[in-house]
């Protein structure tokens, strides 16, 4: 498909996810359902297309999150994650 030198990890997904979430999730700690790796959402591997994004675990490559914007609806699939932890400001 296309190639661009742009961010290719969770950092690149934050704008899209802000269509759905009220806060920036870069620092959210996520736990992979498959391998239990725990780390910031920003570190997940990014695969993006025109309408959707997929974030994969950097340790085991399992799909952690899918996000699809059809124009009419935003679709979120986080079956690949065991847990998402969002710290409060200053906490």
């Amino acid at each position, binding site marked *: *498909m296309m*190639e*661009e*030198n742009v961010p*290719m990890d969770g950092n690149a997904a934050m704008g899209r996810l802000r269509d759905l979430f009220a*806060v920036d999730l*870069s*620092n959210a700690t996520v736990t992979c359902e498959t391998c239990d790796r725990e780390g910031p959402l920003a570190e997940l591997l*990014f695969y*993006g297309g025109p309408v959707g994004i997929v974030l994969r675990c950097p340790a085991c490559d399992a799909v952690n999150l899918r996000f699809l914007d059809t124009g009419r609806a935003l679709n979120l699939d986080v079956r690949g994650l065991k847990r998402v932890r969002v710290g409060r400001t200053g906490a």
Partner: protein
Amino acid sequence: MIEAGRRLEWLNARVIEVRVENFQVKTIVSEASGWTDHAAGQHVDIRLTAPDGYQAQRSYSIANAPGDGQRVGITVQRVDNGEVSPFLLDELRVGDTIELRGPIGGYFTWEPGDGGPLLLLAGGSGVVPLMCMLRARAKAGDLTPVTLLYSSRSDRHIIYREELDRLAAAGDGFTLVHTLTHERPERWIGETGLIDRPMLERHGPDRGANPQSFVCGPTPFVEAIANHLVALGYPGDRIKTERFGPSGDVK
């Protein structure tokens, strides 16, 4: 840091400057009405709409220092079969309007006062968010010790070369080290070859000082260096990474 929920609206931004950085890289500065200030390392989403309605969207690191009014700078590297970069580099003119939204992201960020010492490791166009940190530091008069180890294919590929030299000449605690991976020009006084553990040991700050590391570049670069840093005893929770590279298919 979690910021209060503010909906990110698409803003119209008028291009006010297009600057050639090297043979394949330009910086595009636009003025976005409604832009709120950013932190160094944050991103902006750029959206292009074709006449037939087809839209392409990319995330770019913000290049200009914070506190720059409504100006947003991005530095774009040419990718020949790219969908967005050829338009930004070849078609876009001063006075044109693009759509953008941001600032985005709170992970790969540094602000004056966050402390250090800082070790910045750049591969190719991965230098962009790190340059933003250096600009923010210089603008604030921040004296945090910082080392940039910057890997480029050749000296033609170096981005921001003159500005980096100027910043390094200020003598305010910024140390600049270039390495070239594919050639060694005559009279080259920098490093050559890939960044490896001995090179990191030669130039990195004392691990005992609890340095903060930011690594940005292509995925193999980021993975190799993060592993080196951990092996050398750098605190793992103080190593932040951002992968730049070709955007691929959803797999």
